[in-house]
């Protein structure tokens, strides 16, 4: 019995201690008074922790970094209200959706002079034509990744995925818009096509390809390429760069027909309490030197033109990121296709069940 009591008491003390700690932290906040809080809602591991720490120091604030795993989750949280985030990171198409729903605040560009450092192609993308509700943070382009040991002829067209030699070794992204968009591109159409005949053609091509597909995969695609289970497939530039570091035989091309380009952005939700601090944070991230440090950590293309001189040679010479940058003009953004979406979904379901 005594043991039990001791246990209970210790649990209680722990609880009280924890509660006490919480209270102290609140008091500290109140005492500092000036110390502001930036509530950041983003993808996991999306910033160099040192960069965030430096921002906190420089602006005497605290960054609360909470994470989400997909755009729809983000949208739900913002729509539910209640959650007071100051800075969010929706992807391109989600920016369009949120704009339509009037969920984004217009940014005050006077607070973000460094936004001019962005590569011009990324400055006013189709999903946010005025370019003042979102700013590109990370971006990438979909291409063909292949293993040079098994794929002897360097692919240069989406057509090459249909080569019967790669049957059972081919991976396609597990995403309807990406994969149907790829087949549309192969036929020379837009990846946003709403013409039923064009989408039907793309679907028939994919249906013919389905028996060759090893998997429709997005989350573990890197592992499959590194372990050489997969020889060829569609992949994003950032993933390709990651994969190359663990398997030197991986090659990457952006096919001549063009490809899908994507971006994760900075945006400020309507009603954000610390809007100005959020803008300062964005400006801080686009500072050329900070930007160089940050993107080396996260391993994506740095969209900051002025930062290039501060990057290490290793980063500058990363073949995959280079390919991405050189082909940026081949990219076409995915936009809202409205009424045509159910048609895509129907074809996609049929494809995946046929597999």
């Amino acid at each position, binding site marked *: 019995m005594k043991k039990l009591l001791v246990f209970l008491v210790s649990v209680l003390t722990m609880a009280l201690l924890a509660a006490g700690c919480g209270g102290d932290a609140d008091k500290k906040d109140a005492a500092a008074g000036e110390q502001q809080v930036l509530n950041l809602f983003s993808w996991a591991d999306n910033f160099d*922790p040192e960069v965030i720490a430096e921002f906190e120091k420089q602006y005497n604030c605290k960054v609360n970094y*909470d994470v989400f795993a997909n755009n729809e989750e983000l949208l739900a949280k913002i729509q539910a209200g209640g959650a007071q985030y100051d800075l969010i990171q929706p992807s391109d198409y989600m920016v369009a959706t949120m704009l339509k729903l009037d969920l984004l605040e217009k940014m005050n560009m006077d607070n973000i002079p460094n936004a001019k450092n962005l590569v011009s192609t990324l400055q006013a993308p189709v999903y946010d034509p005025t370019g003042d509700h979102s700013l590109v943070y990370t971006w990438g382009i979909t291409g063909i990744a292949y293993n040079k040991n098994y794929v002897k002829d360097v692919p240069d067209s989406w057509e090459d995925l249909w080569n019967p030699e790669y049957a059972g070794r081919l991976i396609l992204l597990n995403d309807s818009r990406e994969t149907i968009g790829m087949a549309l591109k192969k036929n020379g159409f837009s990846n946003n096509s709403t013409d039923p005949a064009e989408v039907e053609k793309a679907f028939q091509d994919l249906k013919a390809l389905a028996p060759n597909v090893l998997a429709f995969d997005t989350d573990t695609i890197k*592992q499959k390429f590194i372990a050489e289970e997969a020889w060829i497939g569609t992949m994003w530039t950032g993933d390709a760069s990651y994969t190359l570091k663990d398997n030197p035989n991986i090659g990457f091309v952006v096919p001549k027909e063009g490809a899908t380009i994507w971006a994760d952005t900075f945006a400020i939700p309507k009603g954000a309490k610390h809007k100005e601090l959020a803008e300062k944070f964005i400006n801080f991230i686009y500072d050329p030197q900070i930007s160089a440090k940050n993107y080396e950590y996260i391993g994506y293309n740095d969209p900051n033109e002025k930062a290039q001189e501060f990057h290490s040679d290793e980063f500058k010479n990363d073949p995959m990121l280079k390919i991405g940058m050189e082909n940026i003009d081949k990219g076409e953004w995915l936009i809202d296709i409205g009424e045509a979406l159910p048609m895509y979904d129907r074809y996609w379901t049929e494809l995946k069940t046929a597999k």
Partner: protein
Amino acid sequence: MQKTWRSHLLLAYSLVILAFLYLPLLILALYSFNESRINAVWTGFTLDWYKTLFQNRRVLEALMNSLFIAIISTVVSTVLGTIAAIALNRYQYKCKPVINGLLYLPILIPEIVMGLSLLVLFAQTQVPLGKTTLILAHITFCLSFVVITVNARLEGMRHELEQAAMDLYATPLQTFRYVTLPLAMPGIVAGALIAFTLSIDDFIISFFVAGPNSTTLPLYIYAMVKRGISPEINALSTLLMCATISLVVIAQILQPQHSSKNND
């Protein structure tokens, strides 16, 4: 002869079931010691992933959030649940089966429905999402488990001791303090441990009601997986698993020992 054949079969069957249950967890734990960033191939033993984990401020913050929320919700739900269980056990009234049923319901309601309804409630009443809403939600679902565990203990308890205490002029408060509470204690501790485990592990309900500065460990693990599965996630999951298992073991050890002592 037949008997041994049968027992062999039974043993094999049990082993298969056990393997089915625990093999995935073992493999997950094993790969947290893998040198390679990729789960596909084993390249060598390392503890680096645990090291990076403990240097990661976000992970530590998530851990602190999880512990903070779990401790508060455990204490509150244990106190409330114990009081409720004693009242339910002691008094007879008209709608007792209905009340009992209502207490069981949160266990049966799909978590996703509960999460959503709590989110709607908080949104309607304009409670800002964050640690407060997480704690409220966790207390809500832990409460039923505490009531049921404590109630089970009370059901098995004989009332002679309480009656004897009262015969010896103990006041109701003294009876409660020196007789009822110690007798019920194993149930209360078990209930508290269950509540703590549930709160630490909860993902679905937390997913709906989390807000700024309240990312818990399970939420963090989920978001990390989307970034590509790295051994860091394995390491984190292994630690979470070990914590949960040790709590369950403690609950198991505490219960029979003390109940037998008390029955003497």
